[in-house]
């Protein structure tokens, strides 16, 4: 048995074992986490070895005597496997102390089963070598994650979120299926590798259809509507896995199809790039307007998917315009951002999970001052925030740096590439600024200042199984940010298989870029160390006083007076009002003895708002008209089936 199969078996065993052991709560968790963790670790080492040695591995077996299930691990698959196994491993460890309600033992056991299935199916999605295998794994992935989303099914909101996710993932799957139908119709083969024999028009149709399908999984605007509902509903380690890696399978699908079809028209690159810019900017604008910490993080996934798409779009344009350096920079940046985002986003979701578990609320404006009691959570969350804002010396900066360099290459090209590159660069700059604003809001309001409600205070920070994964992830953010060499090497190894026809990519110029990043980060640290030393000198033997915050002359400050996240984001949201309409509910204060008033605000997502009018209502109307087909008479249903077969026989 090779190590990939071994890891799949171990992971599934962990899920099944949980079902049998559910009566012993702690044992069940230990066994499930142990098996899943070891399985992921085996898979992770295997994927890393394959990626480093550029090994390729394929296996094929028969299924139902008709279709062959075939799997192949090449550089691109191995790269995605690395982030899947890494995040799943840490999420499994995290879940040991996170799922601590022994009243829900059976439910926890079931959730481990689906968790194991989710990990295995994600791994199978990125290793599938033909359409049937891919679709099968894709469906298992969608369904298992659906059951994980409705873990807390008692709440009506969660059920609605699950339903929304179910609908979106299956409508998306229909688009993918339709595209695969065209694929098979043109090539007569289910293998991805046979994709480039089709006529160009069929290729373009397939790319666009799959872009919609994969986009709805990845959370590309305007197909992202399910994300901000599903992520808050799911348990935090599931959100970490879903947002960190599961939505990336959509990105994998886009890149895989692009590579196997080999259609290098600029049009598709332009579509990807523009979709990326819109998702990136609107994702972070909506994130700024959220009051629920997990919804906010979910919108940041939309933003980061946007950044990844900008990178990949720049890469595709580089291919179309025959500029290999731009292509490699774009793809390398986009792929590295896949890994980076999976690291810092799962870190942030885990941090949010700790906050929610200890305080019992997800509302940002009710929290405050958590950093004092929750040091590890606070510091790791701060690291994650710096990384997601793309600031040096953390990992988000590295991938954005590569994407920028690719974009600048494009700016020097002819007119179309120039216009698109300008837009990409400026959107990246705006996204960076907005992300900084958004995460200073989260860190500032949730972790700093004073607790806003006396009843919502931070408890202690227990649960080493929850803290350890966050420390590991924060460490990774830092290591990739300062020493990106190895990780860029991994990303570069993932590119050649995507069939760009450049053969072997020269590593030297790209390694030089990473060396520059390391140099710059080192210089910064040396200077920071100097400043710290200077500060120690200045504060030697000084009197350090302690007092309340200066209230500008006001002597009776209360924590209620603090700036809230809502007020912090208000002026930026005002600027983006056309794209993010703000609804406020605030009865005016009037009279000499004013009654108690309240303030409630909600930022509308225009995609969600228009979806009802543009899609849902017409579809409902149409199906209402077609209701006569569904009459409940079994004879006629059999008649339908016969008719369908006859018609199909007639046509084929």
């Amino acid at each position: 048995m090779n190590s990939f199969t071994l890891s799949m078996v171990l992971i599934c065993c962990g899920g099944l074992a949980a079902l049998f052991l559910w009566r012993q709560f702690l044992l069940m968790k230990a066994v499930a986490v142990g098996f899943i963790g070891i399985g992921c670790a085996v898979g992770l080492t295997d994927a890393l070895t394959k990626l480093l040695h550029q090994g390729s591995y394929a296996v094929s077996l028969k299924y139902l005597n008709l279709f062959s299930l075939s799997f192949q691990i090449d550089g691109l698959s191995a790269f995605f496997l690395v982030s899947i196994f890494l995040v799943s491993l840490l999420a499994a460890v995290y879940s040991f102390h996170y799922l601590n309600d022994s009243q829900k033992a059976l439910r926890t056991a079931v959730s481990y089963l689906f968790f194991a299935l989710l990990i295995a199916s994600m791994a199978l999605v990125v290793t599938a070598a033909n359409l049937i295998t891919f679709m099968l794994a894709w469906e298992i992935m969608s369904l298992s994650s659906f059951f994980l989303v409705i873990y807390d099914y008692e709440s009506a909101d969660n059920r609605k979120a699950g339903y929304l996710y179910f609908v979106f993932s299956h409508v998306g799957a229909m688009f993918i299926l339709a595209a695969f139908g065209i694929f098979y119709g043109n090539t007569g083969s289910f293998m991805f590798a046979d994709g480039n024999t089709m006529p160009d028009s069929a290729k373009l149709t397939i790319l666009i259809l799959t872009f919609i399908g994969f986009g709805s999984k990845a959370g590309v605007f305007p197909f992202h509507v399910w994300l901000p509902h599903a992520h808050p509903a799911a348990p935090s380690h599931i959100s970490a896995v879903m947002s960190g890696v599961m939505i990336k399978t959509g990105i994998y699908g886009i890149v895989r199809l692009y590579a196997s079809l080999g259609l290098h028209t600029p049009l598709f690159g332009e579509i990807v790039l523009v979709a990326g810019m819109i998702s990136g900017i609107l994702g972070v604008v909506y994130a700024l307007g959220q009051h629920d910490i997990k919804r906010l993080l979910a919108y940041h996934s939309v933003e980061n998917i946007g950044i990844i798409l900008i990178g990949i779009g720049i890469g595709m344009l580089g291919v179309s315009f025959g500029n290999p350096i731009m292509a490699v920079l774009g793809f390398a940046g986009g792929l590295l951002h896949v890994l980076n985002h999976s690291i810092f986003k799962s870190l942030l979701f885990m941090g949010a999970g700790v906050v929610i578990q200890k305080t019992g609320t997800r509302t940002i404006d009710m929290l405050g001052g958590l950093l004092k009691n929750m040091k590890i959570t606070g510091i790791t969350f701060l690291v994650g925030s710096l990384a997601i804002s793309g600031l040096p010396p953390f990992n988000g900066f590295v991938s954005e740096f590569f994407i920028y360099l690719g974009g600048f290459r494009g700016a020097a090209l002819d007119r179309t590439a120039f216009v698109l590159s300008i837009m990409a660069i400026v959107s990246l700059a705006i996204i960076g600024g907005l992300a900084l604003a958004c995460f200073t809001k989260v860190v500032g309001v949730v972790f700093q200042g004073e607790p806003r409600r006396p009843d919502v205070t931070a408890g202690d920070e227990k649960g080493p199984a929850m803290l350890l994964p966050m420390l590991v992830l924060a460490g990774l953010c830092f290591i990739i940010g300062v020493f990106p060499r190895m990780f860029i090497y991994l990303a570069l190894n993932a590119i050649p298989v995507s069939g760009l026809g450049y053969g072997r990519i020269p590593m030297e110029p790209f390694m030089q870029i990473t060396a520059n990043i390391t140099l710059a980060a080192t210089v910064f640290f040396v200077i920071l160390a100097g400043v710290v030393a200077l500060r120690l000198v200045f504060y030697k033997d000084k009197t350090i006083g302690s007092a309340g915050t200066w209230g500008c002359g006001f002597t009776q400050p209360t924590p209620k007076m603090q700036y809230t996240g809502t007020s912090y984001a208000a002026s930026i949201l005002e600027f983006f009002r056309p794209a993010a309409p703000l609804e406020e509910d605030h009865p005016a204060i009037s009279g000499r003895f004013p009654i108690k008033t309240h303030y409630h605000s909600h930022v509308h997502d225009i995609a969600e708002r228009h979806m009802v009018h543009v899609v849902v209502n017409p579809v409902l109307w149409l199906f209402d008209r077609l209701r006569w087909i569904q009459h409940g008479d079994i004879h006629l249903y059999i008649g339908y089936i016969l008719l369908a077969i006859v018609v199909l026989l007639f046509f084929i």
Partner: protein
Amino acid sequence: MIKSLMFWVLAIFLAPFFSALILKVKAFFGGKKGPPLLINYYTLVKLFKKGSVYSTSTTFVFKLGPMVSLSSAVTVLLFLPLAGQAPVFSFNGDLLFILYLLGLGRFFTIAAAMDTASPFEGMGAAREAYFPIICEATLFMILILFYVLTGELRLAAYFTGSQPFGLWQMAGSPMLFVVIALFIILLAENSRVPVDDPATHLELTMIHEVMVLDHSGPDFGFIELGSFCKLFFYASIIAQLIMPFESGYLALNLCLFTAGLVVVYLAVGIMESVMARYRMDRVPKFLLTSFALAFFATVITLEFIK
């Protein structure tokens, strides 16, 4: 290398001096004598000698804020060419690093302000998070223009050798737009009038000053020094753009560069003396002007002139 390092040290030490020029100009317009030109050094020494009082609401982030913002401003100066002299460090894409490093400094300044639980500081922080977004878009627009003209993404490539003059030759009059746009960015990023008023005493109207209300002693000294360095960074970029001559002699270059710097600082001072601060909701429009200027400069240069 040694020479560049000396220039860097000199830049840090001279930055407070130039900022005092602004005070002098304002005093002149007010018909006053004004503080001595070395006032900022006196202030820094005074602050470094003091102890500190910390708010009970704050955490370690509050102490980290001044250190990170000073380090980022000082690090940025390492990449800055001065008077035609090559900077200490320079690599392809260092400008991206510079802009994002200044972002890191901003992140920690904001985080330190939010740490105090003060509503005023929160207000300043929200504005500090908002306005630089537009500034960054403008800076990247200018970067695109420079990149397409020179094919380089290094700060040193724009301001050493034949370059600042070459830029004017290639772009011509649209470079004026760039200079104005950069000047607007300078005013916004360094919290000068008409975006922010460093001298005001009404906390509600401030941005940067209100964010550092609770800092005291050496911590506050670090913040002050950091902001002098940051202003010096932007000012010397504009100075080298408006004095784009390379004489070949270090002394003459230094004179030209200093003259450019004095012009920029005087312009800031005059601006502060003759203008009032904009209402807060006007500021984004003011900043968008800079973006429009940079955008037009790029489009005009690349479409019609190049």
